[in-house]
């Protein structure tokens, strides 16, 4: 058990809006092991970002955490006072945001923005903080750190800015790093570089990473384990190879099937029909049922529980019930998967 860094149990988060209560995260549980990378994938609006913001306790004012606990090495951070939470943020749990172009204060020299987080959590003199800041810049691959630390964010490219953000985030050697689509706003070559940087830094400081993305190519490359979210719930979770080679949930099939590949002979891109449900009124039964071509009658009445497939692999679909008809994943998936793994290999080599 001591191997578990972060344990999320039955987390439910909702937002009160003018239209009503939006149930953004519904009964989510997962755990994060020390030093591992867990990828959370899902469409936008599936609750992955809200889940992670809850881990930082950085939710907007209209949000409420309705149930659950988040144990960081045994302490429930949902019960910690706001003052103590500030010591956890940036120090124990850190977060990288999606858009590096807007994540840095445009009016402050980047050196100071890095020093700020060091002096906030470590009792060090300005001079030491400065030394550490220059080290960090070097570490994330900013050349000539002494000169560049005196520059403003607009003097850096998007990729460089994300490196700077990473240096801020890793300044205090956090135990958990949350990366919310850190490469989405960057171009492809830059994406690969940033992911390599994260991977190498992870080894150096032995941090656990929660990686939010919708890019399965990135997932195959970085993740040890993958959690698939749909309509505020985790519907399948398992080791990366299990998700890629033996997916069980029809939504995961659809997701894998709909990713673009390099196979130009494919007639057209697969799309999952329909749209995600309205979380103002979460449907009874399986939320995915209306879009599921393998939907069972039971899906409309009862929500499927998590079925265990292996020690590490779980999925929430009635198809796994003993009474359900046997269904094989669509054949086309195999071919696409091969293609897909090949492509993600491109990342590994770079």
């Amino acid at each position, binding site marked *: 058990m001591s191997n578990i860094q972060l344990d999320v149990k039955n987390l439910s988060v909702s937002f009160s809006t003018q239209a009503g209560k939006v149930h953004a995260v519904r009964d989510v549980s997962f755990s994060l092991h020390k030093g591992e990378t867990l990828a959370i994938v899902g469409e936008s609006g599936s609750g992955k970002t809200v889940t992670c913001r809850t881990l*930082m306790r*950085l939710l907007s*004012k209209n949000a409420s955490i309705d149930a659950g606990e988040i144990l960081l090495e045994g302490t429930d951070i949902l019960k910690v006072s706001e003052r103590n939470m*500030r*010591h*956890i*943020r*940036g*120090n124990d749990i*850190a*977060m990288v*945001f999606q*858009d590096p172009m*807007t*994540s*840095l*204060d*445009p*009016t*402050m020299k980047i050196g100071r923005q890095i020093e*700020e*987080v060091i002096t*906030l*959590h470590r009792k060090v003199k300005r001079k030491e903080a400065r030394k550490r800041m220059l080290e960090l810049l070097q570490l994330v691959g900013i050349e000539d750190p002494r000169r560049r630390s005196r520059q*403003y964010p*607009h003097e850096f490219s998007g990729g460089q800015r994300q490196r700077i*953000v990473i240096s*801020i*985030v890793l300044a205090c050697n956090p135990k958990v790093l949350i990366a919310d689509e850190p490469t989405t706003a960057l171009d492809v070559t830059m994406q690969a570089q940033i992911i390599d940087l994260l991977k190498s830094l992870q080894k150096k400081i032995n941090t656990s990473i929660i990686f939010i993305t919708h890019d399965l190519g990135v997932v195959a490359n970085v993740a040890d384990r993958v959690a698939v979210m749909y309509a505020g719930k985790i519907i399948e979770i398992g080791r990366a190879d299990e998700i890629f080679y033996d997916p069980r949930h029809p939504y995961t099939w659809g997701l894998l099937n709909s990713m673009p590949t390099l196979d130009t002979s494919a007639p057209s891109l697969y799309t999952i029909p329909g749209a995600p449900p309205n979380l103002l009124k979460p449907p009874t039964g399986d939320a995915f049922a209306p879009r599921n071509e393998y939907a069972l009658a039971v899906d409309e009445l009862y929500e499927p529980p998590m079925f265990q497939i292996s020690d590490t692999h779980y999925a929430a679909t009635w198809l796994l019930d003993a009474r359900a008809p046997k269904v094989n994943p669509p054949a086309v998936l195999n071919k696409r998967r091969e293609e897909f793994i090949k492509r993600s290999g491109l990342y590994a080599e770079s």
Partner: protein
Amino acid sequence: MKRWLRFISHRLVYMVTTLWVIVTITFFLMNLLPGTPYNNRDKLSPAQLQVLDEKYGLSEPLFTRYTTYINNILHGDFGISLQFSDQKVTTLLGSRIGVSIQLGLQAVIFGTLIGIILGIIAAMKHNTWIDTFCSLFAIVGRSAPNFVVAVLLQYIFAVSLSLLPIGLWKDGFSSSILPTLALSISPMADTSRFIRTEMIEVLGSDYIELARAKGMSELRLVLTHGLRNALIPMVTIIGPLTVSLITGSMVVENIFAIPGIGEQFTKSVLSNDYSTIMAVTILFSTLLVIVIFLMDVLYQLIDPRIRVGQKT
């Protein structure tokens, strides 16, 4: 450096052109005026008028008078007041300018300071009753004309409670309190409203979110990241603030009987004192043009994103 030289010289050319146009326009407007500067023209004989016109230089052709005037003001001579005991305009205004500057500075410092604080509080407590209260204060401050505010303050604190002097500029600082308050309401309301809007936007930005994720306290991140980003655009409202101060000073000085420029201006306007009106117009315009110039330079200096000389 070269950029700076170009930028500054550009702005200086603009300043001088603007002032020249203003001087020219006011000169010709004033000389087209229907009234006459003499109180009792009907009683004056043509010969007497002739003498007076000679004395004030009104007998020469318009264009000659214009060139003489330009030449004179370049030498710091704004002519002789036609109404106020034949004083030189520069002496007349010189004795009054200190009072107006003190009043204006006190009002602008007090007003913007309180305005910034109110704006920050409102933004931090966005959508609570505190925010509503601050916004309500701002909109009432913007709606209540400064002369009404001045009279109200005078009535409450000087007439009814006799706490502070009712007017005049005789009791040092204490006699400046009420006029300063009256004059600062409008900059206070404008600033608090402006800072609130800016701050709400800044507080919703990604870099503030990152600062929160760093573990900074709300107050600290507002004072470091929030304030620097919200204050930069405030430079753009300094010009309008100056204008409203100039406007305000005219009534506030009148109501509190303060011997300043604003009071002199209204007096001169009511008595067709051309040379003084012109001098005050030029003085106010110069002030405004200089403020606009400083504001432009300041903006270039404090926003690292702007390269000198670039238009925003």
